[in-house]
């Protein structure tokens, strides 16, 4: 295996510019940060919790949550810990910070102070700085992760890792394509190499930082093979920079068999590709995201989606489930609504903990399909990079070999057109330039034709629209009225 790790000197050389991009950057002192991380008890380290869950075959629960002000944010997290019984805590970052618009974040903080309520959709960690972050991570008793959607997360990583967080979500593809419009992939991949290298550095010093690529992408009819390919690529990129604790993610699709197959294959394929690339000794875990698409406004119906997600998380043997709330369709949840989603999910995963895994013929078939598809994509991507994984990924998007549906970014072709088949599995009507083998592409088309026949209409864009709305209207497949 060729060592693709960024030389330490290169990282160190790049740091000053990053740290000086906002005043709080000056608070970061790496040695002091290691000393701080050294004081974090094992029970609060993310990687330890994930490994323990995997060993015990437990499904851990984790919410999303973040508000503008520190004290309010601490209250929120403590509430989710006690009243929500969350195993793992998040700190969701606001959308200005994600775009490195720290001035706007500052304005949001100010307005929130004045309004007496958070006007930001997350916690502006960069503005709050290292000390602010430490107040947060110190106040709670569970492991805390930074969850965001930031194409250039270098400063955010510097500040939050020094701030005592032990897990960092995202990746150069998954936090670009679904979250931005114009950022070139080469740029975000390069910036995430910095982040991964920084995490790897903490790992080297004995402070494992769990890394979690964002699996669900646009959360909207993403075919498993697309999500899996991106997740495995980002896993490889993190491993290359010395990360050891990796959690790959998948957003619930809706058909149980396909979802179970997706979780199983994500684990299996990641291991295969990681080992093929020469890695060993890493710790792989899998996170299942409850339904990431549009929710219904009615809270009872939202509970249904939450619980079904938790059920499939348990039945598929995921290690962690990211939990939605009954407020999902409406807005950032209150802490109470967030705890409700957590408790409903906890009841479900615990109640289902003793159920045996499900291996129906459908599950086996879907596993086979996903494997075949990923094997159509990933080797080509890796080959394109001739040894440089990031270059391969960027070239693959450029060539349309990888393509994410409904994404905002101009750097994905957006030609791939997914829709549901008659049983609700996500299929690909038009693969665009995604190089699926002919028999696989034919299988997708046949499955969609089957649905079209059942609905007495032809396969059309209307079906996609119907599918996008379906769950929020109480169905999985968007049937004609």
């Amino acid at each position, binding site marked *: 295996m060729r060592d693709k790790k960024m030389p330490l000197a290169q990282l160190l050389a790049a740091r000053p510019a990053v740290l000086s991009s906002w005043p709080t950057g000056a608070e970061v002192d790496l040695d002091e940060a290691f000393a701080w991380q050294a004081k974090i008890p094992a029970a609060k380290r993310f990687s330890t919790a994930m490994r323990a869950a995997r060993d015990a075959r437990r499904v851990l629960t984790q919410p999303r949550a973040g508000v503008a002000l520190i004290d309010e944010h601490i209250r929120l997290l403590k509430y989710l810990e006690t009243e929500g019984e969350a195993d793992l805590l998040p700190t969701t970052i606001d959308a200005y910070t994600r775009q490195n618009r720290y001035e706007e974040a500052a304005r949001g903080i100010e307005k929130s102070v004045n309004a007496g309520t958070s006007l930001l959709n997350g916690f502006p960690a960069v503005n709050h700085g290292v000390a602010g972050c430490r107040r947060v991570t110190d106040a709670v008793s569970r492991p805390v992760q930074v969850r965001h959607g930031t194409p250039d997360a270098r400063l955010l990583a510097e500040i939050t890792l020094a701030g005592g967080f032990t897990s960092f979500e995202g990746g150069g593809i998954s936090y670009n394509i679904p979250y931005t419009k114009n950022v070139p992939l080469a740029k975000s991949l390069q910036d995430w190499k910095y982040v991964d290298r920084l995490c790897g550095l903490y790992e080297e010093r004995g402070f494992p930082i769990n890394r979690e690529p964002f699996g669900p992408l646009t959360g909207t009819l993403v075919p498993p093979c697309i999500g899996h390919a991106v997740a495995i690529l980002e896993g490889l990129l993190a491993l290359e920079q010395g990360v050891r604790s990796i959690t790959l993610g998948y957003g619930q699709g809706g058909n149980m068999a396909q979802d179970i197959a997706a979780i199983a294959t994500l684990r299996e394929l990641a291991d295969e590709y990681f080992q093929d690339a020469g890695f060993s000794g890493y710790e792989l875990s899998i996170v299942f995201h409850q339904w990431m698409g549009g929710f219904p406004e009615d809270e009872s119906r939202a509970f249904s989606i939450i619980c079904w997600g938790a059920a499939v998380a348990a039945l598929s043997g995921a290690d962690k489930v990211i939990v939605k709330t009954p407020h999902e369709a409406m*807005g*950032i949840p209150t802490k109470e609504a967030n705890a409700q989603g957590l408790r409903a999910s906890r009841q479900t995963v615990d109640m289902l903990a003793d159920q045996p895994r499900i291996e129906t013929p459908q599950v086996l078939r879907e596993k086979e399909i996903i494997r075949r598809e990923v094997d159509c994509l990933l080797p080509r991507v890796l080959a394109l990079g001739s040894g440089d994984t990031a270059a391969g990924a960027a070239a693959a998007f450029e060539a349309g070999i990888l393509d994410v549906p409904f994404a905002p970014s101009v750097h994905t072709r957006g030609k791939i057109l997914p829709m549901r088949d008659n049983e609700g599995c996500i299929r690909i009507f038009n693969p665009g330039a995604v190089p699926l083998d002919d028999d696989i592409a034919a299988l997708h088309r046949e499955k969609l034709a089957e649905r079209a026949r059942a609905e007495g209409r032809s396969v059309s864009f209307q079906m996609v629209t119907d599918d996008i709305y379906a769950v929020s209207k109480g169905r999985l497949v968007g049937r004609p009225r």
Partner: protein
Amino acid sequence: MNAPTIVLGVIGADCHSVGNKILDAFFNEKGFRVVNLGVMVSQDEFIDAAIETGAAAILVSSLYGHGEIDCEGFRGRCVERGLEQIVLYVGGNLVVGKTPHEAVAEKFSAMGFDRVFFPNDDLEKAARLLEEDIRARPREPVTERPA
């Protein structure tokens, strides 16, 4: 009515593209000429596009919660740049947190938006209202004035 032009986009640092793509397809089908700016559009980008294309309406989306901050002063900016008569719609999850629709509608109406929409509102109805509102407004040509 022959194809009025409308400018569509998601304001601020907001990346939610799914609804935007659906609105694009929908208003196209309804016979509007849609200029879709996609996500992460600033107030001035909206206004630039409206001026450039002689649009009759701007349809602003905001899903991610910062709508209140991002939309502040939008109407004033339109007037400044000569778009007194432009129809200004806004829709989505406009504020942070679950809030009664009435309160949100009031807030954005006060900010100068002609109509305020919520995720579950009927798009057919929105299209009808848009036609009416466009037809109802005085038909002077849109010209840029010095800001």
